[in-house]
């Protein structure tokens, strides 16, 4: 294949990564923005979403699309419930202190990972894509499902943006983020907002996982890489900034796709991780964020 089509293919793959990454990073960013909690277990919510998707799809017979849609509807709900319980049982009791919550979410990471290994096993299992239509470019055929991931993710991002900026729920969330105590004084149930945001963040990760699982297969260790990538995206985009998160997800996803296509993937990861650590050291507000208040 010539260089041009090869680049197009790498870019498309990168866009698929970006689409999934943007959803997942948005969840991480919301949780950090509103609750000031760094959720190290976010990758495990992603993994749990994928594993549950396989389980749900395996219970449903008939056309693959039915199983997939059932997984897309139910898996995020279960993951959201797990996250809700984790917030009520653990994080709230820690008063959301940054260090204690990090340690606790590390604990949560190990618990979810080990339970997945025990009950799901070490195998990687796929979920059938809901449809197998291929779009034919002049140089290669490309999975229509992958393109639909990009579209779905874009719709979900627009929907989230709408909820955050144009509805009462979003207003309440932003008020809590801006000043927790004043929000409480105005009668906003801050505790419930926190639990809801934590659940919502986890659900976004689970949705991302269900979307990607027909391509990558569900595996109990699949959470770590997306977690690091989401950290990277959230940091580059500026913590708590929706637009920055999307732009950074595009940047990271596409460059990851292109670099991995032409260079060693390990080297690509090393360079990306190092670059982000340097961004955090020298420009803590992110490339697109504004300076801290």
């Amino acid at each position, binding site marked *: 294949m010539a260089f041009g089509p090869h680049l197009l293919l790498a870019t498309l793959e990168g866009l698929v990564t970006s689409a999934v990454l943007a959803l997942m990073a948005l969840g991480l960013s919301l949780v950090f923005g509103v609750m000031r909690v760094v959720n190290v277990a976010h990758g495990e919510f992603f993994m749990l979403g994928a594993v549950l998707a396989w389980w749900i799809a395996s219970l449903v017979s008939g056309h693959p699309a039915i199983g997939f849609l059932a997984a897309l509807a139910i898996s995020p709900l279960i993951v959201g419930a797990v996250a809700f319980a984790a917030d009520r049982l653990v994080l709230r009791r*820690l008063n959301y202190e940054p260090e204690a919550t990090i340690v*606790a979410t590390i604990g949560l990471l190990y618990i979810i990972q080990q339970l997945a290994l025990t009950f799901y096993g070490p195998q990687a299992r796929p979920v059938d894509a809901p449809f197998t239509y291929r779009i034919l470019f002049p140089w290669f055929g490309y999975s229509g499902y992958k393109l639909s991931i990009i579209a779905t993710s874009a719709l979900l991002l627009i929907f989230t943006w709408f909820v955050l900026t144009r509805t009462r729920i979003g207003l309440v969330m932003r008020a809590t983020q801006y000043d927790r105590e004043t929000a409480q004084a105005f009668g906003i149930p801050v505790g419930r907002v926190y639990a809801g945001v934590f659940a919502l963040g986890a659900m976004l990760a689970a949705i991302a996982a269900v979307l990607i699982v027909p391509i990558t297969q569900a595996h109990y260790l699949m959470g770590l890489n997306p977690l690091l990538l989401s950290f990277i995206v959230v940091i580059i985009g500026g913590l708590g900034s929706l637009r920055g998160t999307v732009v950074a997800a595009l940047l990271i996803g596409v460059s990851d796709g292109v670099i991995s296509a032409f260079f060693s993937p390990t080297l690509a990861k*090393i360079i990306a991780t190092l670059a982000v650590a340097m961004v955090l050291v020298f420009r803590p507000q992110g490339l697109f964020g504004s300076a801290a208040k």
Partner: protein
Amino acid sequence: MRSSALPPRILVLHAGVVALLFALNFVLPEYHHAVLARVMLLSVFAMGYNILFGYTGLLSLGHAMFFAAGLYGAGLSVYHLGWSIPAGLAAGIACGAALSTAIGLLALRTTGVAFMIVTMMFAQVFYLLTFYFAEWTGGDDGIVLSQEIRRFFVGDFYLNLTDPTTRYLLALAIFAIVLFATLIAVRSSFGRVLVAIRENEDRARMLGYDTFANKLAAVVLSGTICATAGAAYALLFGYAGSTFAGVQYSILPLLWVLLGGAATTLGPFIGTLFMYYVIDITSSYTSAYLLIVGIALILLVLFFPKGILGTIRARWAGWLP
């Protein structure tokens, strides 16, 4: 502030622990003897972590890179360059000191959550580098130092690192040196400044202390101690692999220190010993030892944030260092 001489009971307690460990060398059954040698080295790692986390209040999620710097610094120079074992140990410690200085200069520009993420990312880069240079490091399989290399003379003195008793006593020697070094360090004026920074950095700065320089010194001291543990681990047990650079080995010292009691001199050892046996015993029933680690972390931060020695100090023995 003047650094006071060690009160007798503190000296007796620490010397007593070392003496007890020395006596155990002669009575312990083979299996527990080997475990304790390992635990002593790993608790040196935890003591290094404790300097930064317990005393200075900086939570690093990347200390595996310092342990691994010592591990590879020693292992690779002996394996590939044919250096002697003592030179390898020195190389490992030097690598740790150099890496921690560089990381400290960069990471200390950030605070709080950013510091945790930055240290985690640097450690991840280190971990990936061990794979990128798999030709030399052996990646996941690692490198094994042969038995011949680990039998050598220092002057006229023959040392056989494959012999369990030699291994135990050397581990104990390193443990004792680091234990007393940390004890002296945390009771010195430098140690008091670190605690002042932990409690209120702005106030420490207002009082005229150069908080950046002190924090950097804490990172370097901490990283060098961790590298010492790593270098000794590679040489005594003859193996260096990338598992030790993984994120899990950044979390474990945190767990050990939390369990034993942050900002206590003996806490890291108690935490390491306790956790090692918890995992050891549970793994004979189930392979799900990570579950135990996870549950232990959550229960600790929820109900027992001061750890074992921290609680004892708060309730009964305020004099514990």
